[in-house]
């Protein structure tokens, strides 16, 4: 059967067609659609498919399933694997009975991530096999293959996707007449294996791990590499590539009509020694891969070139212009780089990512800055939509999930002359905010933590959260109080004076606290169709041009997308973008130039 699928949807079909019965993970671009698609596909099947509070939790829930003999998988983005890595490093020693596929989506080019780390490195570090698909079709095929290899060798297998696979679309041929095999897992006690302890237990598993890797290398050669070597024409030089990079290289060779052997590696780790033998048959071997030099390091020898020899670029996303640059540098091609732009852009007007019109985060940052002035404050923040509060200069630091809380603690010790006021989203707080909050409470750190509670994981497409799913049984206020913190609650109103007045109360209370003061701001996401209606009054704004003095307060301190200067040098509101939240009318403008539209 042929379907037009996005890479992530293809992976979900691959999981279904591998009889996957348990799937968990945490949302993160570009991986999020895998679990949501799998939930839709398995709606009527006895399958567990749920978002976890974080990647480590999701990994462990699913991994236990694989120990109990069912096929299981976990999904996350590359930085999510950092969180789940503790579990991964040990799971690779212990292994599994049902298959365990670890799906990680990388983001070469930092499109929506803090790092462009290559998860294949993590597979190598953990000593587990990794498959590196080029297209959505391969994403489907390799998901099934990963499950098969995982079951065969009783090891976790990584499927490493990247943004250009996860978020690309093509026609994918999937299995016809697939029948889901029902049946439950059965945990079989094997204390020596499942609870192997240092030193003897883990030492023997380490030897087993090495033996297993040798067998997987053989499999990699026989099943995946050898058939491709047969197709090679023994040209003078060779290019070795994998994943998305292979797609770019293949297109370049076709479009420039170059006759150079190109070997595609499906499983970049572990690589068999036969590959080192093959390399000897060529004068020069160029490795082109995305993002880190994984294959290149594995087959390192005098005639192997790539990132480590500075022939291939080391940072940022691959493109054909860069592939040709590498070919020119090494001398595989002499001629024009046809992938250089013909038309250049002078004076580009770029649109910065911005908080949506009507987003309450904007009001919170505006109010925080009014009450806690920048010169006397430090604003640590976290990972989510609200990171865009950076446009209002309401954010000083961004590190990783949950770090706003622990860094607020650290700043409160290091710089006692400033008030530390940190911001974190509800989902990020559940993900990794509680451990640092408990730490701060018991060590009596003095700072303010504002939890921006829109009851959804907004940035990645509004996935559900524990609080929303349990209708308040798991509640941010109760959790923060349970951690021992003092808590103040704000029920958001689309009136900036209300929000500012609330933060003035926060300031008063803070003066008398001895530990961290938590603010839970109950608000909403404008894109959340279920809840947004109750919050947005639908009063649209316009500008009284006589009052507008072009002072820039709205464009630099409030930064709402519909607001811009018109030809007369006055602020204007784009009616197509305005959602009618009316906050600007309530008092953003020092000269009260924003007025309701129907009063004009």
């Amino acid at each position, binding site marked *: 059967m042929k379907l037009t699928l996005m890479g992530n949807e293809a992976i979900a079909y691959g999981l279904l067609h591998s009889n996957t019965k348990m799937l968990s993970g945490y949302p993160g671009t570009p991986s999020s659609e895998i679990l949501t698609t799998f939930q839709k596909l398995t709606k009527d099947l006895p399958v567990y498919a749920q978002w976890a509070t974080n990647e480590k939790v999701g990994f462990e829930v699913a991994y236990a399933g694989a120990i109990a003999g069912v096929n299981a998988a976990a999904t996350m983005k590359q930085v999510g694997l950092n969180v789940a890595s503790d579990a991964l490093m040990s799971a690779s020693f212990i292994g599994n009975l049902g298959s365990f596929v670890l799906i990680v989506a990388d983001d070469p080019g930092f499109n929506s991530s803090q790092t462009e780390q290559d998860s294949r490195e993590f597979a190598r570090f953990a000593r587990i096999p990794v498959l590196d698909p080029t297209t959505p079709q391969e994403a489907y095929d390799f998901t099934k293959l990963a499950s098969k290899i995982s079951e065969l060798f009783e090891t976790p297998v990584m499927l490493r996707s990247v943004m250009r696979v996860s978020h690309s679309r093509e026609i994918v041929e999937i299995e016809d007449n697939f029948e889901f095999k029902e049946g439950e897992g059965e945990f079989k006690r094997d204390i020596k294996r499942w609870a192997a302890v240092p030193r003897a237990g883990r030492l023997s598993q380490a030897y087993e791990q090495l033996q297993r890797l040798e067998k997987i290398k053989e499999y990699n050669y026989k099943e995946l590499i050898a058939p491709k070597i047969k197709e090679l024409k023994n040209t003078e030089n060779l290019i070795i590539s994998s994943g998305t990079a292979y797609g770019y290289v293949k297109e370049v060779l076709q479009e420039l009509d170059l006759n150079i052997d190109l070997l595609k590696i499906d499983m970049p780790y572990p690589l068999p020694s036969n590959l080192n033998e093959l390399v000897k048959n060529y004068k020069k071997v160029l490795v082109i891969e995305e993002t880190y030099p994984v294959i290149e390091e594995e087959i390192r020898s005098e005639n192997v070139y790539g990132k480590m020899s500075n022939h291939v670029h080391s940072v940022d996303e691959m493109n054909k212009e860069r592939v040709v640059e590498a070919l020119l540098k090494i001398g595989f091609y002499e001629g024009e780089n046809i992938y250089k732009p013909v038309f*250049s852009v002078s004076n580009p007007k770029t649109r910065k990512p911005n908080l949506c019109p009507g987003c309450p985060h904007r009001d919170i940052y505006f109010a925080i800055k009014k009450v806690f002035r920048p010169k006397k404050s430090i604003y640590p923040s976290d990972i989510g939509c609200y990171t865009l509060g950076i446009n209002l200069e309401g954010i000083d630091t961004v590190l990783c999930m949950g770090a706003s809380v622990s860094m607020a603690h650290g700043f409160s010790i290091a710089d006692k002359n400033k008030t530390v006021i940190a911001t974190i989203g509800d989902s990020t707080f559940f993900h990794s905010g509680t451990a640092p909050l408990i730490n701060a409470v018991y060590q009596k750190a003095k700072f303010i933590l504002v939890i921006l509670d829109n009851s959804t994981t907004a940035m990645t497409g509004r996935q559900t959260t524990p609080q929303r799913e349990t209708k308040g049984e798991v509640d941010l206020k109760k959790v923060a109080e349970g951690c021992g913190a003092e808590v103040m609650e704000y029920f958001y109103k689309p009136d900036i004076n209300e929000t500012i007045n609330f933060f003035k109360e926060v300031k008063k209370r803070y003066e008398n606290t001895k530990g961290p003061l938590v603010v839970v701001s109950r608000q909403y996401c404008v894109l959340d169709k279920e809840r947004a209606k109750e919050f947005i009054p639908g009063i649209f704004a316009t500008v009284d041009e006589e009052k507008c003095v072009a002072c820039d307060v709205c464009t630099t301190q409030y930064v709402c997308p519909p607001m811009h200067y018109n030809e007369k040098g006055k602020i204007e509101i784009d009616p197509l973008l305005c959602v009618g939240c009316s906050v600007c009318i309530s008092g953003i403008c020092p000269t009260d130039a924003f007025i309701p539209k129907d009063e004009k």
Partner: protein
Amino acid sequence: MKYQIVIAGFGGQGVVFLVKVLSVCASKKGYKFLGTENHGMSQRGGSVSSHIKIGDFYNPLIDYAQADLLIGLDKDEAVLNLPYLKKGGDIVVNADEFEDIDANVFAIDANKLAQNGVFDAKGLNVFMLGIALARVKNFPFSIDEVKEAIGEINPKFAPANFEILQKALEYGKN
């Protein structure tokens, strides 16, 4: 057959809908294709562009100087995406006027037409697709093929979209 299209706009303009229409057109004709979207961290109002490569390709990203056609739903976004266009390629752009470059440029002020009530502003994406159908010689799909795809993806709004398409064909001829 190889044909590469860049669609440029910003969040909310319906760039992704056009990619879906073109991919359905391609799959119905039995053409291979690969498509991808670029939108970084923007939710609403940020730059969005989509690449669709029809034919025997292995990577969804269009490279500089390779696109046969650039559809610009917004003037600034079209300018930003100019490096992808090949020499002598086609541009249809929503703008009152556009840079004089070595390409077949067709600029039409669709915003103004929408404001004057020629079509509903929400259908800007379909209107510009209609302009491409009317103006671009090698456009890989026929009007009927595009209509069929639109009907399949969103049957509810298909009649309204067909109307917009028809208006675009008229305006595109002049």
